């Protein structure tokens, strides 16, 4: 073979490898439950309890850590997981027999986690919040893995010792990652006291690579319940605009949940870099996701995308 033929063969092999990766057969279809929820008011714990059950999330007897997305606070937009949503999830988990439900977060920009939580309404919405909350930026740490050339990956001890981590992201687009959902939400588990504010190591490691690394580290005992009642579109995760989506998405597989969220936002999940790289952790293909509850295609709302991410738009109607 000449050089051109070697090149063509190489490209073909690489392409085949990619196709093979994207059509990896799964032993089962991953259940993802989609719930309609118009607002944070009223009885939210009941429907969320149903979502947890329908998604197959087992909680009885477990020590649970809820990981909301708490970034910055602005009255003008919807940056954070709504405190009433967190309160409702906590109530639902306790009613389903969870032994303990703590809340933990390590914001990436704001230094004073407690004041941020207060500004964001967590103290008002969640009874006994100060006894339940763990500042993951300043917790004791344990070595959880490796960030390869950047050294060990340290984890907050409270997170590491939880039987079940529930990622509670906000349904948002993201200016560097395309979307920020249950996997990207795990950035908040990296302790700022070691990595700083922002956690710059994760950016230099590669945002998408870091998203996948954290998902690999925690996926086995992490489930997701996504606050998509009010999401954020455009220049997320901070400067975007609120988007009333009226949905809650729950599941045991983070990749499948995030892929479903993408479809609900009118985004092709197979084009999202981190999801494309995380297919060894779960499926993005609809045939390997068992959609329960509402059908995503009937609730699809095309979230505004920044021009640099316009190519993520799903062409399927």
């Amino acid at each position, binding site marked *: 073979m000449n050089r051109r033929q070697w090149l063509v063969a190489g490209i073909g092999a690489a392409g085949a490898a990619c196709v093979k990766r994207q059509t990896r057969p799964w032993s089962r279809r991953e259940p993802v439950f989609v719930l309609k929820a118009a607002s944070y008011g009223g009885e939210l714990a009941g429907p969320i309890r149903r979502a947890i059950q329908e998604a197959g999330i087992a909680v009885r007897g477990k020590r649970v850590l809820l990981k909301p997305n708490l970034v910055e606070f602005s009255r003008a937009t919807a940056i954070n997981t709504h405190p009433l949503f967190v309160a409702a999830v906590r109530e639902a988990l306790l009613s389903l027999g969870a032994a303990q439900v703590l809340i933990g977060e390590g914001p990436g920009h*704001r*230094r004073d986690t*407690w004041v941020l939580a207060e500004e964001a309404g967590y103290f008002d919405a969640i009874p006994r919040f100060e006894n339940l909350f763990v500042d993951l930026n300043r917790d*004791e740490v344990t070595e959880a893995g490796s960030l390869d050339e950047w050294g060990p990956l340290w984890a907050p001890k409270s997170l590491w010792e939880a039987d079940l981590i529930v990622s509670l992201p906000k349904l948002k687009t993201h200016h560097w990652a395309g979307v920020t959902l249950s996997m990207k939400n795990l950035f908040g588990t990296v302790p700022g*006291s*070691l990595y*700083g504010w922002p956690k*710059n190591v994760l950016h230099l490691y590669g945002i998408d690579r870091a998203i996948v690394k954290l998902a690999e580290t925690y996926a086995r005992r992490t489930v997701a319940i996504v606050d998509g009642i009010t999401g954020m579109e455009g220049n997320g995760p901070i400067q975007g605009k609120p988007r009333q989506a009226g949905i809650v998405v729950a599941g045991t597989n983070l990749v499948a949940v995030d892929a479903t969220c993408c479809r609900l936002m009118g985004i092709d999940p197979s084009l999202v870099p981190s999801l494309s790289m995380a297919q060894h952790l779960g499926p993005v293909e609809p045939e390997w996701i068992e959609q329960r509850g509402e059908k995503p295609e009937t609730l699809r709302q095309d979230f505004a995308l*920044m021009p640099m991410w316009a190519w993520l738009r799903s062409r399927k109607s």
Partner: protein
Amino acid sequence: MNQASANPAAQALDLLLARQNPDGGFGHAAGQSSWVEPTAWAALALHGRPQASRAMAWLAGQQMPGGGWPAHPQTQRESWVTSLVVLLKCIRGEFDEGWQRGMHWLLGHPARPGPTPSWLDRLLRREPAVVQDHQLLGWPWTPGTSGWIEPTVHAVRALQLCRPAAGNPAVQERIGHGIRMILDRQCRDGGWNYGNKRVLGEDLESFPECTALALIGLAGRGGPPVERGIACAFQHWSRQPRGLAQALLRIAFRMHGAAFDDRPVRVTARTETSVLALALIGEPQGTWKLWQGGNAS
């Protein structure tokens, strides 16, 4: 807690003293193992007391072979907290071998230069994705990463207070770089956030705690940028900040001689140790003057 606890400063002092671990260090919260950052702030807040000497002894024992300090002994990796310990050593006049090694580490670990926009970036974008002077090297949180406001402020102040290095042109050059970097990152509203003023064509807002820190790094300086910074700090102050932001703004105002409507920092048993310490440092008779470069009264 004693009867004096009705006074917020006395309460902060009680809580802080009770946080000292048997090894002399302090954790971020009550009952936690000793970490370098809260221990350093506690040592400054308690300057002149035997508890501060015990804290310094613990800190001295944590220095790494390379000369820097780890955020926590368990990690065995040098980090931004090196600036805090070097600062303390300068304040205390401990220009010993540990100080020398710490200085050497600090000077040898600047931030990595920012990315130079590619031709494609320049073609596709009217302005860089992140607007800043990438050639101005501040200091990073962890070695090999980019420069940010807070670690740069601490490094600048540490180097400024190192009297034996006052005539060293290399040190002065690094201080100058750090100060220009802080000024370069000033947000449109006059304050500072963690270090990004404009990203993807949108201005970012300042944070009160970072605005205060930047002003602490610019203590002793005047001019329009500093005046805009102080004006922005007053805007933040008018919104009744609490916790860390309030503690740092009080210190910044005092360092710049700005008259302000002082309010004591309210603390509870849950207040983070560094906030307890900074609340005490910022008291009218607190050790903020040492941080500024003067003598405590």
